[in-house]
């Protein structure tokens, strides 16, 4: 097989794998299933190039790669989609606070919103699969910390949490500071599955006593 034939085969393989899946596939999954000789990075560039401007495009999403319909064709496809349940304003605000301030505790969410959070709001977000319980903050009361999931990134077409819209401006304006008064160092949102230095892992008993503790 000539060199270019081999390249074509590798490109077809990459295309087939990504096209067959409805979820993003990450680099290691793809590399594992390509021959060791394949130039993975070049193949990705080539494949993205092939689909540029087409009805289906290759996107980097949620730390992986996926084929998606082109943004501008939404009008064509929306006709068929079932009406999605709308998030309440409370849920929406809570979601964006968790996304931009993660890891965030319920108390922090409430402090930013200036209102206590009903249990249902977090439940809806947890159920949607967009936020998850990360761990526990190493502070008195050891409150549960919340963060976003890969499904969140996938749903909102984000490559990573660093791609959250307006993140840099918010950071620059000191608005991601969860502590008052302003001027304190500004934390970056962090959805790293590894727990931070001030987070403890969740224990098994999470869903029993702590829910009660957290309720007010």
């Amino acid at each position: 097989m000539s060199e270019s034939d081999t390249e074509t085969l590798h490109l077809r393989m990459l295309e087939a794998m990504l096209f067959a899946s409805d979820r993003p596939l990450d680099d290691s999954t793809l590399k594992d299933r390509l021959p060791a000789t394949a130039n993975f990075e070049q193949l990705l560039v080539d494949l993205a190039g092939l689909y540029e401007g087409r009805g289906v495009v290759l996107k980097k999403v949620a730390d992986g790669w996926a084929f998606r319909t082109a943004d501008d064709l939404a009008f064509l496809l929306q006709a068929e989609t079932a009406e999605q349940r709308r998030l309440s304003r409370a849920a929406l605000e809570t979601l964006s606070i968790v996304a931009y301030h993660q890891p965030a505790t319920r108390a922090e969410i409430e402090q930013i919103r200036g209102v206590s959070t009903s249990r249902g709001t977090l439940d809806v977000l947890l159920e949607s699969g967009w936020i998850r319980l990360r761990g526990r903050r190493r502070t008195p009361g050891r409150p549960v910390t919340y963060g976003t999931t890969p499904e969140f990134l996938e749903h909102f077409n984000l490559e990573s949490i660093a791609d959250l819209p307006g993140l840099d401006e918010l950071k620059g304006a000191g608005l991601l500071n969860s502590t008052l008064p302003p001027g304190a160092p500004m934390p970056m949102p962090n959805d790293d599955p590894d727990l931070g230095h001030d987070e403890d892992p969740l224990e098994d008993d999470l869903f029993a006593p702590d829910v009660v503790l957290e309720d007010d």
Partner: protein
Amino acid sequence: MADETNQIANDPLTQALLWENQKERASEPDASEPSLVVDVDGFEGPLDLLLALARSQKVDLAKISILALAEQYLSFIQEARRMRLELAADYLVMAAWLAYLKSRLLLPDIKDDEDELTGEELAASLAFRLRRLEAMRDAAARLMSRPRLGQDVFARGDPEPVVTIKHSSYVANLYDLLTAYASQRQRNSVTSVQVRKRTVWSLQEAKDLLVRMLGHVSDWTPIDDFLVEYFSTPDQRATVIASSFTASLEMVREGVLEVRQNGPFTPLFVRRASRQDGGGNHE
């Protein structure tokens, strides 16, 4: 506490804040209409109400007059109370705090407590909170206006899943095989052993026979003579001999029979007992 379940307020300001109408937020509510906002149910707590009031000032939140805002809030609360609207406690707490803030802003700072924040610091803190809440709202709006999966962009509708094919290879060695064969052969042969029902002469049968026979004979007679007609099979022969012998001994003990044998393995002779006083003369 604001009731989160009651999201749908009818006033245009609140409507404009609902996320599904985020695009309409560009058109700010008319500054001349803040007095219309009396429906507290439409707000998510005092901070939300303050933010709505602040936005009606139509200026950058960074340059907002916190003093003016506090006055607006206080008059709003006053109006609400005049109309006898139910107000949640946090609205009143905020009103009290704002009244305090207002006094701090109007009076010169008293430098009696180093730890206490100045009026300006308190105002800045409130302004920061308002800006931060608004920033999060904007962020939510921007998030929601992104092309979303399943609404604006679509994944492969009919994915072709990776099928896992299991190849089972079986392991067994010759020992396993032989053990299995041997054990099942053995188990089966053991279970198939049938204990045949043997024809057994009971002692009573043998005794009855001897009594009947001895009725005709009074001299020494080989016991086999009586039994020969019952020796139909080798199996039967054994049981007939054994039972008859045992029966004969019993009858000797009872004194109705005498037994004699001339030497080991020689024929056994029997005859009716001549005396009734027991004590046989068998060897």
